[in-house]
């Protein structure tokens, strides 16, 4: 079980801020494929990975990063703070 968090328009498109997911995916990309297959709103949110960022346990990561040992995955658009 892994906590998956969504922020900004990813959260709005999927319709929830976080969920717990049972996944067998070995990488972030594998998890994205599973999510896309779940429902149309996930497919829409993850349509273009180049406009998304991912953090693993609150550290920025790549989509090909392994999920082993990770407790929290977050998906969000490029940051716009400051």
């Amino acid at each position: 079980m892994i906590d998956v968090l969504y922020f900004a328009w990813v959260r709005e498109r999927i319709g929830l801020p976080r969920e717990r997911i049972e996944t067998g995916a070995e990488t972030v990309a594998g998890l994205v494929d599973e999510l896309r297959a779940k429902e149309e709103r996930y497919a829409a949110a993850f349509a273009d990975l180049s406009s998304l960022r991912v953090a693993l346990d609150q550290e920025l990561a790549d989509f090909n990063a392994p999920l082993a040992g990770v407790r929290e995955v977050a998906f969000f658009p490029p940051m716009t703070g400051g």
Partner: protein
Amino acid sequence: MRVAVQSAAFDLGAEVAAFTAGVRGAGAVVSFTGLVRDEGGKLSAMEIEHYPGMTEKAISGMVGEAIQRWSLADALVIHRHGRLAPGEAIMMVATAAAHRGDAFSAAEFLMDYLKSRAPFWKKEIGAGGADWVAAKDSDEDALKRW
């Protein structure tokens, strides 16, 4: 160093004064303040979402790096989230160093990193609806100089 992520407004003048009074031996203090622009009256509010937990960690990491790299006497970051009106202060950064070049560089470095590496997302709310602010290529490019 101090990092604060909060929805409450902060007292810019008091923060700058207290930060400056607290640095010992520094000759240069730089502060940056980001304000909500009104975009010629088109913007009625700004909403800032963040990633609690990661935000503080990410900013503390940036500040620690800046302190080391420019031998800062001290550094401060305050960043708000939630709903803000035009004219309100979104965030501030302050840096203190022996010399002005280091204080300026560290403040610009922190701003560039906060813009693109701290997990905040801005939504502009106007008469025509609400829009997430798109990240700018120029902000991503700004990181390359460091």
